[in-house]
């Protein structure tokens, strides 16, 4: 559950691998222990460490002190609390893929999880880590944004619930405080057909160039990744579709609502065109 460990995945030209001996890791065996360590000591939580190793190899790893919470089994549960699906922060993509509850209530998260990295990454990477790492390209984030997921944060003293759509404050920036851990992601009941599409740089082991999740209901809910500094919902587009606009009109609204950029993986022009194409495809396939 690395937090902001990989700010930049492009290596500085004279950077070298981060020195391992300069890193310090503590391990927590329980949530209580983890939270009490974080109360007194600023450490970056890690679990699967899949983002951390990327940054480490590129010499862009900023934090030096870590708290390994991989062993905190109480954060692994996937369960129902009434009608709310509760996903433990340490639920791995593999466990999400295998969970009958997720398959039943949030099948598009199964689809998204299947497209994260490869099996090794899916075995180690966690949902909480994807949320905490705060990449605008995070594969699970549009799914969570589209269903108005709630991030449950806990510190030694308090617990608070933040809607995912309010969790990010900018590029790789979140409302999390240093003494807090993500303990769970709560998914309120989802009505309507779910739809997910990742456009990566290749068929597997790919970072997304654009990622879309949608729920088709009276008021559709649609979220995009990799088109803005954070994952975004597109409320104007949603409203126009809800109010009966044609899909062409909605696509025009969308093109005013998102601001994709050029980077080493793709272009703003392509992202814009594909975003509107995928909006249409979502509308056709869920209609």
């Amino acid at each position, binding site marked *: 559950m690395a937090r902001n460990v990989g700010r930049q995945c492009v290596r500085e030209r004279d950077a070298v691998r981060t020195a391992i001996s300069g890193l310090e890791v503590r391990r927590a065996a329980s949530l209580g222990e983890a939270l009490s360590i974080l109360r007194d000591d600023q450490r970056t939580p890690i679990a699967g460490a899949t983002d951390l190793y*990327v940054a480490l190899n*590129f010499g862009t790893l900023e934090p030096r002190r870590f708290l390994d919470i991989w062993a905190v089994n109480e954060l692994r549960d996937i369960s129902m609390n009434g009608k709310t699906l509760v996903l433990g922060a340490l639920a791995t993509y593999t466990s999400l893929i295998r969970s009958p509850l997720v398959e039943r209530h949030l099948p598009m998260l199964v689809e998204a999880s299947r497209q994260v990295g490869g099996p090794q990454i899916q075995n180690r990477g966690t949902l909480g880590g994807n949320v905490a790492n705060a990449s605008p390209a995070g594969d699970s984030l549009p799914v969570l944004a589209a269903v108005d997921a709630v991030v449950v944060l806990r510190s030694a003293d308090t617990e608070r619930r933040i809607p995912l759509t309010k969790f990010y404050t900018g590029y790789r920036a979140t409302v999390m405080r240093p003494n807090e851990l993500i303990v769970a992601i709560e998914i309120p009941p989802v009505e309507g057909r779910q739809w997910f599409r990742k*456009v990566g740089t290749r*068929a597997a*082991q*790919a970072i997304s160039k654009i990622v879309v999740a949608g729920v088709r209901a009276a008021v559709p809910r649609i979220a995009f990744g990799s088109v803005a500094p954070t994952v975004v919902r597109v409320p104007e587009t949603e409203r126009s579709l809800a109010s009966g606009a044609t899909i062409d009109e909605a696509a025009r609204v969308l093109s005013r609502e998102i601001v994709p950029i050029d980077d080493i*993986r793709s*272009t703003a*022009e*392509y992202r814009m065109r594909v975003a509107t194409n995928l909006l249409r495809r979502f509308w056709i396939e869920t209609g």
Partner: protein
Amino acid sequence: MPAVGTSVARKDGIGKATGSALYADDITFPGMIHGRTIRSTIPRGRVKSIRFDFDTDGFTIVDWHDIVGRNSVDLIEKDQPFLVESEVRHMAEPILLLAHEDRERLNAAHVEIEYEEETPLFDPEQSTVVFKKIDIMKGNPAGALASADLVVEGTYRTGHQEHVYIEPNGVIAVPEDVDGKKGVAIFGSVQCPFYVIKALRCLFGAHPPIRVIQTETGGGFGGKEEYPSMIAGHAAMLALKSGRPVKIIYDRAEDMIATTKRHPAIVRHRTGVTRDGHIVAMDIDVLMDGGAYVTLSPVVLSRGCIHAAGPYRCDNVNIRGRTVFTNTPPNGAFRGFGAPQTEFAVEVQMERIAEALGIDSVEVRRINALRPGDTTATGQKLREDTSALMVLDEAVRRTDFLRKREGYRGTNRALGLSLFYHGAGFTGSGELSLKSKARLDLTPTGVRIATGSTEIGQGTRTTHAQIVSDSLGIPYEDVEVAQPDTARVADSGPTVASRTCMVVGKILEECAHEMKERLNGLSPAEYHTRHGAFSVERMYAPPDWIKWDDATYRGDAYATYGWGCDVAEIEVDPDTFEVRPLKLTAVQEFGRPIHPALAQGQIEGGTAQGLGYALLERVVMRNGAMANAQLTNYTIPTTLDMPELDVVMLENPYPGGPFGAKGLGELPMDGPAPAVVNALRWLGFDVREIPATPELIAGCTATA
């Protein structure tokens, strides 16, 4: 049972499968320290000052002042320095070398370099510094163009490509005493041990005894042809200065940023045709971006130009090529060596010619395909082992090409085809001047092959042992293969140019025949018991009919060619413009497969590399450096990106090769890109450039 023609166990199989095979980074020596290269962070300018922002105690530091011989990597020219003296010509150019026993202290050492920056040149079309020009002239192309029924013009572009061998570049230099002289032994991941010897002799003068030992090598693809000379020179300087073994292993990012890539190319075609589909004139202009130093660019350009007219007959041809300077890291050898660029261009041009004529592109290819007795652009009269029509007809038949393509009309699926060829061995008189040698040693239990040809995954040890086994009439298991050590093996020339099986295999075949005569009916073990050991060494004799004039580029460019026809079946996502290859049929004729499974592996691997070149592998250059120097953002195909492959190996023996074999390694690289792009044309995307990324395809104007 003969070994040749059967898929015997690889000589290197058990070691690699069990992990006992040792790669450079697996090896340590007592007292070994680690080396690191400090590189330029500007693309062009001069070094003004260098300051060490660290405690230099315990460090070995080398700069150009430490060079006792000549500060240049001896290749075709001697223009590339081992270490910058003052002038910086490209990003990531080596300036200083540091070594220390503690890798982390070594990595933490910060060197502050102040530069006087100059405006860099990145656009090869703007470059006025020409490393090499080539002009191939046949007949009267200007006149033939003027009188042609139709002239089709086109410009085609191909990008950089990175080798992505599994094991990055790495060497260990070990000081050693040889007869009281201080020498150095290089252990490393290299394709051409004797190239390293040549470069180091220039670097150190005649003084220190040098030998190069190839360690198990995790792929090369040309990327370990010339570059290891650089890294070996660096390690050797640090080793001689420190008196300790020095290991330099590049990590992936350094390897991608600093080492060679495939040359980007711009190829312009003007083709004159008759209404009934005969090509009467070809005017071709080839521009290749050489990067900041000459390295191998002249010969890459040469092979590119010779293959630029494609496997087609035409009486009037002019091919003009030039490779030029830019302020980018030097481009170098890469599987195909210039031909994938020019054959991409000519094969897309052929598709467009067919469109312009309104004749099916298969038919246009059939009309013009080279046949035995035809002459190539250089005037080479082709022999019986010419198989363009054979591979074309088989590919069309096997894939039911015409019917299937028609059936896909109006869908998002299409078929595309490419016809290609690849000359085996060094160009022209190259094999003659190489004077390659191979040796066979009689041992107490059999024989040992002693050559400088390297196993880099392609199967050198195995195919050579098969050839020797059958030529000598002894079991395959009784043939061992020596680790290439330049002090102990014959210089069989570089392991490049699809020549190792065909050329070096041929010398070994002759060695084996000579040895068999001396054995006079005895087995090696019997002979050894009675008479002791002996060795047979022979030099390569190219076919005596080869005539080549390097001044005019006329004559027999290659002793033989491999031939291929690829059919790509693809699907394009209408929303995202992603291309999904569904099936690729590769019909290839390369004489005779010595080892069918290895040959199939070469075709499968080369096809994957070709598909990556066609669709995925885009080197993003920013300010003269690769900005996506990582495997997450420089995307090679994964298994899920690969289509079903149907590999067909046709035979048409080359009399000058061992058991009829031709070269194979590079051939499969030439076909996939044009086949895929020609399929895209059928879907309405007028693509003239690779990699054909979804971003590029989305921006393409419709062909229809």
